[in-house]
């Protein structure tokens, strides 16, 4: 790597000059890495234009251009740079894209660079380099952990008015868009034998081993470039540079049809029974998604085995001003050098408690930087090195200095002497934390391993094994051989043991991975020479943790909650364990006792779009259409939803401007001529079998077994607790054959109830329950001329005469070559029929009815008119059947009164349900017919105060009755049946209405039911 020296020594500040394109990026190395130097990508950061290459991330491209200040911190608005090269990034978050695609809090380290990318820094005003709220730093002794719990209490009203708005405005990082997201999302399912999470050496070898054994493998990696650390190091495998070895291995994998490699796919969560949630960033590396493709795809992966090969996250070190731009994880420094061909500093200090830092020092010198390595360890053997950098052992870095970028560090030697070293980069390494977040999603707690100095997954979820760096097997050789072993084991555990010889590649050179982690600063934080950050993103300092402990918040979970340690968008990936170490130090406990806080999904933040996929806007969920939907549409219907169904609400004529006029006309048509209503949406259940009658007698409150052949009966079913569940009709089609109808909304619920009763409660009853809603188009033909209309259509008009088909009768007829069922039932209270015909003919039938009815004055009517007429007739519906009403409440107390043995009978007899003061269904009419009665109003006696004590009931349904010429209402009123004829007030303080009504019987038209029988 000797040829990779800095291209340009003068760090020119890039500007908005579009010609900048030709200027080489100042920190880009001339060779090396997985970037394509032949192609240039132009992008913007804070309005300035820069260039990068395919293969870059936004972070690497910014670093290449020597942009080091990229954001401001959450609380103190401190300048921040790029700390990492991966998903653990706490600092370098930008607002990506613009307008309706604006995406706040996007980690620059995870953004794959594309041409035309636009990004902005966050949480600063007026600009990144000059930020007014950085004065918060000066107030920091006041803004210490939990300060807000101790103040802002007086005066109470000031919280919402003054204090909170200020706090709210200051909080948050980026801003989201307020416009709808123009991109689409998708969800998909995948299945495999072995899911491998992470495609570093461990994952690649596992995939090769399991795949060659014949198992169905999915290898997912969050990165766009598979390979993990292999891309970031200068290792060689079998004599080949590691990043080239990755390429060859991927080719081998692509030759296996049973292996699916999914780059840009983050496994974010583990759920029960081996379900893994993952999100694939299908098009995030483009300015806009490709046509017909989603932006992201949310995957649910169901697997038999999972191999967690997620690697490890390096730990930073804590010292004063350790957050200055230019302080970077030692491993990230290597990533930038080897993967991206960017040397992030010329004069570097490597501060390390682990051997890993030594590798960084080596890489930096090879990349042309001057390096001083500081390692506090004195007792351990240090790795060998080629002597190209200075080494200071037994020393610590106490403080970094520099405003918008680090300029020097102050170090303290073991003997107490201090000195300062100028630098533009501080590479830090404090050992590694295995990436075991996913192992905890089902509730397991990791345990501390004193030897590895790491938390390890003790009880991963069923079916999961952990390997490589994620299992603290930190050397490459271990990673490779673990991968092979786990891949083979997983495959054979699912019955794939086509065991091929999978050789473990030879690693050149010896790796060591020893670490003596250093959590705090080894003394009271009050000696600090500046802020020392543990959680960069949430600005949690050592002092904050110390104060929390002082105030009794010393449990790990309390420290988290009191200081917000680990609660930022990075979820403390670089902070948590350090924080736990600090607690252990300050409370003098072993790390094992401190434990961890809880890791929860998602592993990294996931867009809501990826959870929703296609189900957005009007596709929120499926809808249902009746067979004559198109006809209704042609007739100008307005549709409304009922239990997913699109139902015609009314059919306005061109000259009708107020929908109430339309409804009034439709009602009048039915009451004076004939109307047609699509009732196909009613639930229809076909029940057959020897025990049908017994079964339905147990289901319905009223008796069904006595229902004669070809007759229809109204029926009500209760829940076990005595409340009414649903109502509908029962028609006896044969001795052992009935057809049951349900309300539209409850069709599913009733079917489930019937199945439960049959399969769970009374499995010995011989019935077969088959939903047939879909088979039948059904139309109400209602009005005094309905019989005339039917007679015009049916092959045999005599079949629908009053004698042949009396009220509540049933028959089958032939219409236009199809067989139809005719039920003489009436919801609206007129002479009426419902005709059911196989759905395929529904459209033709309604058109034929319309045509045949033209001379009779026929018109279609919708759910609104239906609703008005059912109130006029006093039929109960949804607002009355709200799950809190009994038969008695609905005025149906006589139903089932003498019957026993049906569901709900016993509990309906509980004393409170029989209390005579319990509201009961009544009708209500405004005394002044010009007044409006509102559903939702409460009922209060005339002369009583409008208070809760005097509340005697409420109005459930109300409408203007075109037939009566005034408003009518149904309501529930205490002792209502005894108060018929008296007055009551319908009080609606919400809408300022108070209408005196007369209490009446809840049937407003044709109380004796003469019309229906006519």
């Amino acid at each position: 790597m000797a040829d990779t020296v800095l291209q340009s020594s003068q760090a020119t500040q890039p500007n908005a000059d579009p010609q900048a394109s030709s200027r080489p990026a100042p920190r880009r190395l001339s060779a090396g890495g997985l970037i394509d130097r032949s192609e240039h990508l132009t992008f913007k950061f804070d309005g300035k234009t820069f260039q990068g290459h395919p293969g870059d991330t936004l972070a690497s491209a910014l670093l290449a251009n020597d942009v080091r200040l990229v954001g401001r911190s959450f609380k103190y608005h401190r300048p921040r740079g790029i700390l990492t090269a991966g998903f653990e990034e706490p600092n370098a978050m930008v607002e990506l894209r613009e307008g309706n695609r604006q995406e706040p809090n996007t980690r620059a380290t995870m953004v794959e660079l594309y041409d035309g990318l636009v990004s902005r820094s966050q949480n600063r005003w007026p600009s990144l380099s000059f930020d007014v709220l950085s004065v918060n730093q000066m107030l920091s002794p006041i803004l210490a952990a939990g300060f807000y719990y101790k103040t802002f209490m007086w005066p109470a009203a000031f919280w919402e008015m003054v204090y909170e708005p200020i706090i709210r405005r200051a909080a948050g990082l980026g801003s989201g868009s307020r416009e709808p997201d123009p991109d689409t999302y998708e969800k998909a399912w995948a299945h495999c034998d072995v899911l491998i999470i992470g495609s570093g050496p461990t994952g690649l070898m596992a995939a090769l081993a399991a795949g060659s054994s014949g198992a169905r493998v999915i290898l997912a990696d969050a990165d766009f470039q598979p390979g993990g650390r292999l891309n970031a190091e200068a290792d060689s495998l079998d004599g080949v540079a590691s990043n080239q070895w990755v390429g060859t291995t991927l080719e081998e994998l692509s030759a296996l049809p049973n292996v699916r490699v999914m780059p840009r796919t983050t496994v974010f969560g583990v759920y029960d029974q081996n379900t893994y949630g993952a999100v694939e960033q299908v098009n995030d590396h483009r300015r806009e998604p490709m046509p017909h493709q989603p932006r992201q795809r949310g995957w649910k992966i169901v697997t038999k085995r999972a191999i967690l090969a997620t690697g490890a996250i390096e730990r930073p070190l804590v010292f004063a001003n350790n957050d200055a731009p230019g302080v970077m994880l030692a491993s990230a420094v290597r990533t930038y050098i080897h993967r991206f061909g960017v040397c992030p500093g010329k004069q570097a200090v490597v501060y390390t408690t682990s051997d890993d830092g030594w590798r960084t020092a080596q890489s930096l010198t090879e990349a042309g930087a001057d390096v001083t390595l500081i390692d506090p360890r004195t007792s351990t053997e240090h790795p060998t090195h080629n002597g190209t950098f200075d080494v200071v052992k037994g020393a610590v870095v106490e403080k970094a200095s520099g405003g918008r970028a680090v300029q020097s560090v102050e170090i303290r030697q073991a003997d107490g002497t201090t000195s300062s070293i100028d630098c533009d980069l501080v590479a830090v390494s404090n050992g590694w934390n295995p990436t075991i977040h996913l192992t905890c999603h089902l509730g397991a707690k990791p345990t501390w391993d004193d030897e590895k100095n790491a938390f390890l997954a003790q009880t991963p979820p069923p079916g999961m094994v952990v390997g490589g760096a994620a299992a603290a097997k930190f050397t490459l050789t271990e990673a490779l051989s673990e991968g092979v072993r786990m891949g083979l084991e997983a495959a054979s555990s699912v019955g794939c043991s086509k065991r091929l010889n999978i050789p473990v590649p030879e690693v050149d050179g010896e790796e060591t991975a020893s670490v003596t982690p250093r959590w705090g600063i080894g003394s009271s934080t009050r000696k600090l020479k500046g802020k020392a950050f543990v959680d960069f993103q949430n600005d949690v300092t050592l002092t904050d943790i110390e104060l929390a402990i002082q105030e009794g918040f010393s449990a790990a979970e309390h420290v988290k909650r009191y200081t917000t340690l680990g609660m930022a968008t990075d979820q403390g990936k670089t902070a948590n364990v350090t924080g736990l170490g600090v607690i252990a130090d300050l409370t003098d406990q072993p790390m094992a006792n401190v434990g961890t806080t809880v890791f929860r999904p998602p592993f990294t933040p996931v867009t809501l779009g990826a959870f929703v996929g296609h189900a957005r806007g009007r596709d929120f969920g499926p809808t249902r259409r009746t067979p004559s939907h198109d006809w209704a549409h042609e007739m100008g219907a307005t549709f409304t939803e009922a239990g997913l169904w699109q139902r015609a609400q009314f059919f306005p004529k061109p000259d009708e401007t107020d929908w109430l006029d339309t409804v009034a006309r439709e009602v009048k048509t039915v009451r004076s001529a004939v109307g047609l209503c699509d009732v196909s949406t009613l639930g229809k259940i076909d029940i057959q079998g020897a025990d049908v009658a017994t079964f339905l007698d147990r289901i319905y409150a009223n008796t069904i077994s006595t229902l004669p052949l070809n007759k229809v009966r109204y029926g009500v079913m209760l829940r076990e607790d005595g409340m009414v569940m649903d109502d509908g009709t029962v028609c006896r089609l044969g001795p052992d054959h009935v057809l049951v109808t349900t309300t539209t909304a409850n069709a599913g619920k009733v079917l489930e109830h019937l199945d439960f009763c049959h399969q769970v409660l009374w499995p010995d009853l011989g019935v077969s329950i088959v939903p047939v809603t879909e088979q039948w188009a059904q139309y109400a033909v209602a009005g005094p001329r309905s019989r005339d209309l039917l007679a015009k259509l049916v092959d045999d008009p005599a079949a629908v005469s009053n004698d042949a088909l009396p009220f509540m009768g049933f028959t089958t007829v032939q219409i236009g070559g199809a067989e139809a069922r005719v039920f003489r039932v009436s919801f609206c209270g007129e002479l009426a029929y419902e005709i059911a015909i196989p759905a395929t003919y529904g459209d033709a039938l309604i058109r034929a009815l319309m045509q045949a009815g033209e001379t009779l004055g026929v018109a279609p009517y919708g759910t609104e008119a239906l609703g008005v007429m059912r109130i006029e007739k006093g039929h109960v519906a949804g607002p009355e059947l709200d799950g809190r009403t009994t038969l008695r409440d609905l005025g149906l107390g006589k139903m089932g009164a003498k019957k026993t043995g049906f569901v709900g009978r016993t509990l309906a007899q509980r004393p409170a349900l029989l209390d005579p003061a319990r509201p009961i269904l009544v009708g209500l009419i405004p005394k002044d017919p010009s007044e409006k009665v509102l559903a939702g109003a409460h009922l209060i006696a005339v002369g009583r105060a409008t208070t809760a004590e005097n509340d005697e009931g409420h109005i459930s349904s109300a409408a203007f009755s075109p037939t009566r010429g005034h408003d009518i209402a149904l309501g529930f009123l205490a002792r209502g049946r005894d108060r018929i004829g008296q007055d009551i007030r319908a009080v609606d303080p919400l809408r300022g209405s108070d209408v005196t009504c007369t209490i009446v019987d809840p049937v407003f038209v044709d109380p004796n039911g003469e019309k229906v029988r006519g």
Partner: protein
Amino acid sequence: MRYSFLNLVGQALNANRGWQPAWRKPEPKSHYDVVIVGGGGHGLATAFYLAKEHGISNIAVLEKGYLGSGNVGRNTTLIRSNYLLPGNIPFYELSMKLWEGLEQDLNYNAMVSQRGILNLCHSDGQRNAYARRGNAMRLHGVDAELLDREEVRRMIPFADFDHARFPITGGLLQKRGGTVRHDAVAWGFARAADKLGVDIIENCEVTGIRMDQGYAKGVETKRGFIGANKIGLATAGNTSRTAAFAGLRLPIESHVIQAFVSEGLKPLIDGVVTYGAGHFYVSQSDKGGLVFGGDIDGYNSYAARGNLPVVEDVAEGALALFPNLARLRMLRSWGGVIDMSMDGSPIIDKTPIEGLYLNGAWNYGGFKATPASGWCFAHLIATETPHKTAAAYRLDRFNRGAVIDEKGSGAQPNLH
């Protein structure tokens, strides 16, 4: 030391050296007048009001984990008193009133923030139901407003008014509703109770109830036996398990409910908004995260974590209401174990066992109840009679048929 701005400044000048632990960490005594099992919001509030209102201070609150590890520390922090049924409204309104003075009472800023709660409706039927509810509230002297579509639009202009599957037709607004900082409720009550002499004992799981001739005499714990004249159970989510120590079976199932927080954003949503055509409600925390939730997972669970169907369902509700949130990222999801009762309403009552008192069945809505629950439970324990606002929350209501079923879904807890 009192919490105040002055002391905050004073301490800042003194490197914050003077702050004391918010509550002591005492060793359990062998006997207390009252032992409260469960160091959640309700248990701590009960102890506080017993000490403050009833002069009983020889009290221990026993918590199996860290203080606030239960639902008080993991809920979506909504407070409201916009209930429908007369059994509920006065109680939740008492709670609202107590919230309104709580911070001064506790000398702790719990960030009681009455930024309003808006329940959206999407059909005429729903609007009528909201009208009924809003009118019931008004009759009880509780604030409520019925908004039309345009009034809603002014509050949340970026909601989907024009392309939605279920267009917004209006909403029920309770301006006094809002949010409270969850952890601060636990810590504030703990600190205030501690000041009045209450022993708060963490990491002290109760494993049994010692009975003697029908009397509850004390509790077995992981830290030994602790005697008590009276024992109050306030173990939300685990009520069936602790009651089983005394042989009781309850009308409760334990379920998991999930909650979610997004990445921090600059202010987007001011109050609380509840979608009416799906399961989704949201508020924005003072830190900028959108805190949201939806339905319960729907099966019995003590696992305190949920599964993907509800995550997706909630996200679908979110985008149906706010199409701009598709790019919003969910930061964290978690679960809590809650008591779901047979009518969806709580229980505050004596048990058939002398000396054993029960507070539970808070479903997904007991956070808002915290102060009133403590107030009424303390009243019951101290006076042996139910507080008048909690008189409907008796155990025998199921046998009597006097259920309080706001949703009307009957004896199936997962439907409430």
